[in-house]
């Protein structure tokens, strides 16, 4: 299968695509923010990573994506910082709640939202108890992420 390409650039695990981020940085954004916003997407689904990255980039958010919690931790450990972290609630090796717990232990203070199509009983509580801040439906769409970004931009002053 040919490598997935979002907006003309390969989706690399945790890395900006060659020649720019996933989404052309020279293309006018659909939305401009007062602050520089950045997002880390943690999702096993390549489709979700491609779509989420394409959407967020189109709306002026510098976005990186990784396929699992361990890769997210490695990225944070390397010094990367993000305005917002979006984590798939249902990953195979490390759940969203477990990933949040690790990231908070590592000192991450950014808002962390769980991405999900549905939550089983107790999963929401576990995610919040681990340090998560809330949830956002999958698949990502301007209908659901724009208000999150607006709140984030306003809170950053």
């Amino acid at each position, binding site marked *: 299968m040919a490598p*997935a390409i979002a907006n*003309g650039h390969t989706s690399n695990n945790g890395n900006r695509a060659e020649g720019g981020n996933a989404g052309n940085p020279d293309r006018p954004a659909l939305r401009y923010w007062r602050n520089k916003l950045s997002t880390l997407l943690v999702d*096993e*689904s*390549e*489709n979700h990573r491609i*779509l989420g990255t394409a959407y967020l980039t189109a709306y002026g958010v510098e976005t990186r994506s990784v396929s699992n919690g361990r890769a997210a931790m490695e990225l944070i450990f390397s010094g990367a910082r993000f305005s917002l972290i979006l984590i798939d609630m249902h990953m195979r090796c490390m759940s969203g709640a477990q990933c949040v717990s690790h990231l908070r232990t590592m000192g991450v203070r950014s808002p962390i939202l769980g991405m999900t*199509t549905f939550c089983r009983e107790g999963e929401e509580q576990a995610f919040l108890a681990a340090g998560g801040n809330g949830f956002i439906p999958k698949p990502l*769409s*301007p209908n659901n992420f724009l208000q999150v970004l607006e709140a984030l931009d306003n809170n950053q002053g």
Partner: protein
Amino acid sequence: MARKDLNQELNELICSFQDQGILDDYFDELKGLQDEESPQFVTNTITTYLGGADNTIAELTTNLSEPAVDYSMVTYLADKLKGSSLSVGGSRMANVCAELCDASEANDREACLARFEVVNREFLTLQESLSKIVQLEQAIYDDKE
């Protein structure tokens, strides 16, 4: 065929699939992300989905044929397939995956097998529909080159 005709044919095809419930409005959002900077975004996204879905269905087939079904794995795989189907506007496919999730959470083998049969049928329909879209998208792309 002229590009305008191909675009019209593609739009009519997508509308037809949406009228049949095979695709939902999210497909329009996905298509909206395609532009001159990323002219094959839809094709690549669909290709990625179909490849991933094929693998997930193969894993489900293996799991459901085991004498002792690992229901937590079946639930995980069905949930994964549901999510990725939603990302290409395949809400009807996502709904049948959700039903498989429910059957798996109930540890009901017979229900899982029945629901999985429906998943397979629905996937064939979605796969055929998305493949037609890819063919037209490719024809439009080739026409531009």
